């Protein structure tokens, strides 16, 4: 291949025919449209109703994956560096608990911070306080746990799989330890507002979805147009070359894992607001859905490849599949079985497509 394509001309200004590049997201988008259309047709055929022409359903499709989507945007960046983050789901659980405890109202006599072991530190001040506190605490705690992930990986050189596996187990333990397994309920309305929908031209739009899209846009810009993004791709594409090019790999990895952690924290905030509570088993297996979304969206687990736009589409594919099956009244167990197959199939198609391209 390398022998073949170089003698195209003498300089880059020879006016040679440039090969038109199709953005890789396009094929994933086509998969999404294809799946949606299949459900549409099956919908008319099986239940005699339209799948897509339903405002409520369209907003639910995205709503149910928005939290996973926020995590997926973070894990995509980790995957681009050639790593993986398994801790996000447990972090969501733990952070949702902590966030909820900062957002409780005094209506709840059993509020966490009213208990003597917390009240003695003056934490009861947060009861009925501004919703900014739980949001800030959630994001910072997430960033801190992500920073720990990055620190362990950068300083000890152990594989990210192991480091984040450890965090996954510990964070789940923290979530259960925090209230000894009790849910944290009765939250401030100013806070739960965040998890509600608002009306836009007759469409019910969940705020979580807005947060998801804003996060995706910011991270897309960061990956495409900033030095942070360039270094992220470089490290995944060839760590040794990145090092020789003067990139401090350890420092950069810590940043990327901290960003992923921050987004897990934000996901925990949104989930607590939407569920109006924190529960220790929240977010179980979210990390796998997030990784699946990234991979369906074209990210490569070997690093160097992946885009936020692809991940967003991958996330929506997961949402469409779940809603579609529910719409067709397929049982929950079958849904999971088929969902697994779809994840594998999506990646197989992509791998096949890549191979065909490189063989061409």
């Amino acid at each position, binding site marked *: 291949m390398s022998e073949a394509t170089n003698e195209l001309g003498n300089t880059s200004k020879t006016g040679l025919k440039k*090969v038109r590049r199709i953005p890789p997201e396009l094929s994933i988008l086509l998969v999404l449209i294809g799946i949606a259309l299949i459900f549409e047709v099956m919908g008319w055929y099986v239940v005699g109703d339209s799948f897509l022409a339903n405002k409520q359903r369209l907003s639910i499709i995205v709503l149910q994956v928005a939290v996973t989507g926020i995590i997926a945007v973070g894990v995509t960046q980790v995957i681009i560096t050639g790593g993986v983050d398994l801790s996000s789901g447990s972090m969501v659980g733990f952070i949702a608990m902590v966030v909820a405890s900062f957002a409780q109202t005094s209506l709840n006599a059993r509020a966490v911070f009213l208990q003597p072991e917390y009240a003695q530190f003056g934490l009861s001040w947060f009861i009925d306080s501004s919703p900014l506190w739980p949001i800030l605490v959630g994001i910072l705690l997430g960033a801190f746990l992500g920073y720990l992930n990055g620190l362990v990986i950068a300083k000890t050189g152990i594989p990210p799989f192991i480091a984040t596996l450890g965090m996954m187990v510990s964070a789940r333990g923290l979530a259960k330890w925090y209230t000894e397994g009790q849910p944290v309920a009765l939250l401030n309305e100013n806070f739960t507002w965040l998890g509600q929908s608002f009306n836009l031209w007759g469409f019910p739009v969940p705020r979580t979805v807005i947060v998801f899209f804003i996060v995706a846009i910011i991270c897309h810009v960061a990956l495409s147009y900033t030095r942070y993004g360039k270094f992220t791709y470089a490290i995944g594409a060839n760590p040794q*070359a990145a090092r020789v090019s003067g990139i401090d790999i350890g420092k950069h990895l810590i940043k990327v894992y901290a960003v992923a952690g921050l987004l897990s924290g934000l996901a925990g905030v949104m989930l607590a607001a939407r569920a109006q509570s924190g529960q220790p088993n929240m977010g179980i297996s979210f990390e796998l859905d997030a990784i699946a979304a990234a991979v369906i969206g074209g990210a490569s687990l070997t690093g160097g490849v992946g885009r936020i736009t692809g991940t967003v589409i991958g996330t929506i594919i997961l949402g469409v599949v779940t809603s579609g099956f529910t719409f067709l009244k397929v049982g929950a167990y079958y849904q999971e079985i088929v969902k697994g197959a779809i994840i594998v199939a999506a990646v197989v198609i992509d791998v096949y497509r890549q191979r065909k391209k490189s063989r061409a």
Partner: protein
Amino acid sequence: MARSQVISPQTMQAVRNSGAVAQSEYLLEVKDVRKEFPGVVALDNVELRLRRGTVHALMGENGAGKSTLMKILAGIYTPDSGIFRLRGQEIRLKNPLDALENGIAMIHQELNLMAPMTVSENIWIGREPSGRFGLIDHAEMNRRTEALFERLGIEIDPEIRVGKLSVANRQMVEIAKAVSFDSDVLIMDEPTSALTDKEVSHLFRIIRSLKADGKGIIYITHKMNELFEIADEVSVFRDGKYIATHNSVDVTRDDIIRMMVGREITQMFPKEAATIGDIVLSVRDLTLNGIFKDVSFDLRAGEVLGFAGLVGSGRSNVAETIFGVTPANAGTIELFGKQVVVSSPSVAMRHGMAFLTEDRKETGCFLLLDIQENAQMAVLQQRYVRFGFVQQEKLRKEADEMANRLRVRTPDMAEPIINLSGGNQQKVLICRWLMTNPRILILDEPTRGIDVGAKAEIHRLISQLAGQGVAIIMISSEMPEVLGMSDRVVVLHEGRVTGILDRAEADQVKIMELASR
């Protein structure tokens, strides 16, 4: 694979030799081979004829189509059209296994061995002798390996893990593996690019014994002296076209260069005199435990300082330490008169250093990224970033200018770098470092594995940069390059500086003496 077990290699050989199959003058005859890739004709009706018991060298600039043809012969690519006759019989190769069963084996430039497995396991993988209960008979496998090695004069323990072997020994294992298929045609793609002189002569001994066995060997190389030493015939390709075939005794080095480039290259190493300025880099007693010790030298602005020494002498390690890739255990580095602890490449870059590494693939290119990204990666440390945002337009302009100056051959800077030839990849990496405006440039094997034309261009560029006052360290295994380009030559042997020679007193003999004493 099953088929080759039913018919043993010996039987196959007997059938081949019995004359039951029509004998032809040529062992392998290839005609009118055409292969197109999107946007480019890689092979335009080329031909090649290989006689039994000869070494047939295949030469041409990078991108001439040599590797493409070899990959077709090894069953990796399928040709668009072409006639292939093996031992007079027409064949069609559908996949690499097909090629092996037909007796064509390729020894790849990038070795394809499994490092955690033993030498024996690597050679016989998929063809392991089975003993009782269908389990693998390791003893028998090792015996076969030993017999094979004895035939080839290789001394390697069959039970050692391949990961522990030197590059040269891995190469030997690859060759033994190819021979174990009882292949008639062996394709070697630049087999000596990572070997020392001693190892090369061992390889040549093996090649000669294979010749004596009646095998045909296609030998791709960029090195002229090897051609005259080992090859019987030579074919030259240029731009995907077949140019000519000659007996190697009938042609001169200049004839071949002329055929390869289609033009005369009068001066290969055009180092022009440059004004030598102040000392910019001063290294004293630099030590990296177990690798090199007490290395001291000075480098001046406008000077090209050659680093010579055998593979394993520590040349590249010294460069890596100066650039902060592997920080030193002891000794001092003074840059522009100030002592600096070079603890990482970014420190080195802040002090105006740049480092083109030896291994394009491993430590140079970001193969997944495009040319533009590859070219701009180092300069992003220093410039063209405002509030974290990359100033892509300015970068694009500068990279484009630099690429034009170095004559990178590509239609588009957005092309993935993996689609470029080795020489053009190297030019992109040089772009990467020149964009940082270095004052000290370390080049480790800047012309390894690249074609004659690109080589001359790189030499001209080095000369030009020295003229502008850039201080250059050039590490090279090619003696003519070191002698032609350097103002002074530092010679290393087993991790120590054994001499520093001025341009006037440096010659091949002196350097070899210092490098091998």
